[in-house]
């Protein structure tokens, strides 16, 4: 009997340990961060809204991304419309990016892709505290950036900040959904669908990422006008300087 109790205790300890391990990253995930001490007053700066990076497709049964041009075109139209409405309510002058007859276009596109990589690294190594990089644990600061190369681009002359937006959506195929159901029956967690969104504000003088809203499980079906509106609202929640919202400093 005593041996049985001892075994039960071991099992409890092991289960507790496993639970802590499994539950910790998801439970503690943060979704927004900003440079320590960063604030933005309404009506003080000029922000350029960079061309959003938008990818929409299906998730195959095996979990692979299969791009869908029609969905991407729809999402681009609806998200652009929603962003157009939202940019008027951000508290500062927000203008859409234009090449302005420079040859900055290809480099700016690379910066947009780099922003996505930086934002994803922030999710992976900052927003999941249990996965935080030890060298970044020394201080509580939010220390991320892309270098000051943007300050040399003529097409961004006169602007103070750049607002980068990324959305990447994979809608689970029928096969994936069936796999998810069978997985659940067998006790195996299979996710269906990926909905990543990043919105980040970059200081054009320093290249520092001063504010980021990012999540891998965003809401809103970007293939519909209502869903795209919901997604944009979520992306710009807590935007610095936006009337009614207060930026959270130092995560």
């Amino acid at each position, binding site marked *: 009997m005593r041996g049985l109790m001892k075994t039960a205790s*071991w099992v409890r300890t092991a289960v507790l340990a496993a639970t*802590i*391990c499994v539950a910790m990253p998801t439970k503690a995930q943060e979704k927004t961060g900003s440079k320590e001490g960063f604030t933005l007053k309404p009506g003080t700066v000029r922000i350029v809204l960079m061309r959003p990076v938008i990818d929409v497709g299906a998730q195959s049964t095996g979990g692979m991304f299969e791009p869908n041009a029609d969905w991407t075109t729809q999402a681009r139209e609806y998200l652009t419309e929603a962003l157009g409405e939202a940019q008027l309510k951000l508290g500062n002058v927000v203008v859409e990016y234009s090449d302005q007859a420079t040859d900055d276009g290809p480099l700016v596109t690379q910066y947009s*892709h780099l922003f996505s990589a930086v934002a994803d*690294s922030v999710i992976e*190594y900052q927003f999941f505290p249990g996965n935080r990089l*030890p060298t970044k644990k020394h201080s509580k600061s939010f220390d991320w*950036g892309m*270098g000051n190369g943007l300050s040399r681009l003529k097409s961004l002359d006169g602007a103070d900040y750049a607002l980068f937006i990324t959305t990447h959506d994979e809608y689970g195929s029928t096969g994936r959904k069936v796999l998810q159901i069978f997985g659940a029956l067998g006790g195996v967690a299979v996710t269906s669908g990926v909905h990543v969104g990043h919105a980040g504000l970059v200081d054009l003088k320093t290249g520092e990422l001063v504010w980021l809203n990012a999540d891998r499980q965003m809401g809103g079906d970007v293939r519909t006008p209502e869903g795209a509106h919901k997604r944009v609202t979520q992306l710009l929640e807590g935007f610095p300087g936006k009337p009614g919202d207060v930026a959270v400093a130092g995560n």
Partner: protein
Amino acid sequence: MSRTAFAALALLAVVSSPCLANSLVGAGPQSGIAKSRMSATTAGEWNKLSLREGKNVEVWTLDGDALNKVTFFGGVPAGAPLLRERDKKNRPLPTVAANMLVTDIPTLLETTYRSQFAVNQMTIDTQVPALLDGHNGIRFTYSFTKADDEVRRKGEAVGAMINGQLYLVSYEAPVIYFFDKDIEKFRALAASIKL
């Protein structure tokens, strides 16, 4: 086994499990890198990721593996691929051969990347003879773009074949800002490697 011992073991399992396993590499001598005889001396701090890309592989970074990534391949034996194969049937990886020349190393890396990471653009840019702790080897630079994030990256690596096994250390980072930011730290690290 006592209850306390088991509880300690369970706690150890939690602490050492992948969910919490990114660890600090402090300044100073480091041994047993990539579970091999490879050692090095670091001038500053790095992060060792829990990410396991292969049996003889260890990954260090400063800001995340998408932004700056040092990969140590510690004595990959003949017949083994550089990385763990994700889809052996449809996308098999090339393997190390005991009689490989050092000039075959860049090709091995390129072929591996094209298969493993859906790299649609990759070029080996320069190749020069180099020493890895006194062993004849090769230093090469390369550039590539992965289909999944479309970020242009550059890489630099030093490798050698020693007793039929491949020892290689590489550094990869986005062309914009990150590559130049940390390349000298990598070169100092690679120059300190002992085998």
